[in-house]
């Protein structure tokens, strides 16, 4: 168990190192940052001096080393636009993004797991068909369109819910549904197929034959085993949710990391983009590390490998 965890931790660190490299490389691709940082009328001599002072003349690997050292201390440089450290700008907006992603995940799990179970237990009934069709539609619907349609119906036509900003619980409803729909559809389908597989197994038949009634068979015997793939996908779906927040936050003017990074890209404010990509990717890696640990408790076979 310890060995497994140590290996898993080493892997996570390696992945973060790779992430940092790619994040650095993206900025490196932008070419000469001096042209963005200095006023256009700077003399050639000034440019040269500035370049030397900032270390832009150093070899690629030295520049990367400096970036990595900074990143480890939470230093991604100053935001070109806001004049504040990029790191703190991003960190300030993290809670809003986590709130939205968490709410979306709650919506997804709250809808998908019951829907998937009912679909599997009442296979080929009307309930199953409806839930399957809804899941299929949900998987095919682009988030940004759903967001706009929800605004059209619930904010513009019915005037029930706010269409932008953050604050009350009401502000959270539409963005959370928008962001969570795709994940809901995925988990519904996964739960259904997982439950169907488990329900067909011998030990379920044995339990039924021994006279265990329906609800305990479903909830105690079957769901426990069907839960394993669901837990894995929750970790992966978090990546979808964090990435999807870019779009959802833009539509609903939600003050999170996603919206900040889109604006930073428009403004060519690359330190902020780097900090945002690096922190979101790190969050994803850490959550998946955590999911893997949880996983070893659910499925002891993994520990032994």
């Amino acid at each position, binding site marked *: 168990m310890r060995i497994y965890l140590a290996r898993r931790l080493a892997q996570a660190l390696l992945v973060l190192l790779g992430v940092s490299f790619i994040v650095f490389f*993206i900025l490196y691709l932008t070419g000469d940052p001096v042209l963005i940082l200095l006023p256009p009328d700077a003399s050639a001599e000034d440019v040269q001096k500035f370049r030397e002072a900032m270390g832009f003349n150093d070899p690629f690997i030295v520049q990367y080393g400096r970036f990595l050292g900074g990143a480890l201390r939470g230093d991604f440089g100053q935001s070109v636009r806001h004049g504040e450290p990029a790191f703190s700008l991003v960190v300030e907006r993290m809670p809003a993004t986590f709130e939205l992603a968490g709410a979306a995940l709650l919506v997804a799990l709250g809808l998908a797991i019951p829907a998937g179970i009912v679909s599997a237990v009442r296979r080929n009934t009307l309930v199953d068909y409806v839930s399957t069709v809804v899941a299929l539609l949900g998987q095919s619907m682009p988030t940004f369109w759903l967001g706009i349609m929800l605004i059209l119906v619930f904010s513009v036509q019915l005037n029930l819910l706010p269409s932008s900003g953050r604050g009350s619980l009401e502000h959270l409803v539409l963005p959370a549904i928008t962001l969570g729909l795709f994940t809901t559809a995925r988990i519904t389908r996964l739960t259904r197929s997982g439950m169907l597989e488990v329900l067909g197994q011998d030990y379920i038949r044995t339990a039924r034959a021994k006279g265990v009634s329906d609800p305990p068979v479903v909830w105690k015997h079957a769901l426990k085993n069907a839960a394993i793939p669901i837990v894995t996908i929750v970790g992966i779906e978090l990546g979808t949710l964090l990435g999807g927040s870019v779009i959802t936050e833009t539509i609903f003017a939600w003050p999170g990391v996603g919206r900040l990074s889109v604006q930073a890209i428009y403004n060519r404010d690359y330190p902020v983009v780097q900090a945002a990509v690096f922190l979101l990717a790190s969050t994803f890696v850490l959550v998946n590390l955590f999911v893997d640990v949880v996983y070893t408790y659910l499925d002891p076979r993994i520990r032994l490998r």
Partner: protein
Amino acid sequence: MSAETEPARVLLRPPAVRAGLVGPAPIILFIRRLARRRTALFGLVVVMLVVVAALGAPWTAAYDPTEQDITNRLRPPGSPAAAGRAHLLGTDHLGRDILARVLYGARPALMVGFAAVAISGVLGMMVGLVSGYFGGRIDDVFMRLADIQLAFPFILLAIAVIGVLGPSLPVIIVVIGVSSWVVYARVVRGAVLSLREREFVQAAHALGSGDGRVLLRHILPNAFTPWLVVATLDMARVIVIESALSFLGLGVQPPTPTWGGMLADGRVYISTAWWLATFPGLAILVTVLGINLFGDGLRDTLDPRLKL
């Protein structure tokens, strides 16, 4: 040789030979089985219609998608226009015909879809084959690369790179293509892991085939099925991503009509002109749904145990 012993003897032969001996070719059998799945067939028809709409846009569209007509801006669906024509889906904020723009918008979506899937599919296939067949160090390296790739919130990575390089059709295709190989690699690798232990592969080795020949002639054709299913379903994802990028202004640039770009325009007029944002969104939904239905059917027909 009696009629009873024939099937048993035939069964011992490799599948390809067996199929040649008894009944129709596998491809015919496959098409028959696929055709029995009505939802898959429906999906295929929808996809074909979208492809035809994209190719035939210059003939089917009654208007030029970029032609502006400020006097007829924001007309609701069905509004009559000059010369007995009508704007079936209305006009946008510059008086451009929405139906024509929806038809033309299928072009960048499908182009990015096919091209990006081709790039990531080939990359992933190569990585999966090598990783699964040789194992060891190479496998470790590729699988860590896959972890790194998956750690990035996809859209954010894409917009960061496109923001830096500047949005254009080739950049969008390459960025999506290069960063989507992981699913293919994993699925192909999984298939190769089990294939390389099979008798026909060992037989090929025993007969003196080198690694390259075994990989290309014996393993690749058998790993193709799961790959095809992934490619189909991934196409749906890529089309949504292309629209998302256009929606954020980082897709194919105006005046070329894109579904995502139309949605972004329509969003501004959402309280007064609902049709601007509704129809391009429906176009994306229908296209993606068709691909998903077809992909699901393909998966169920080819390999029901495949979990995707």
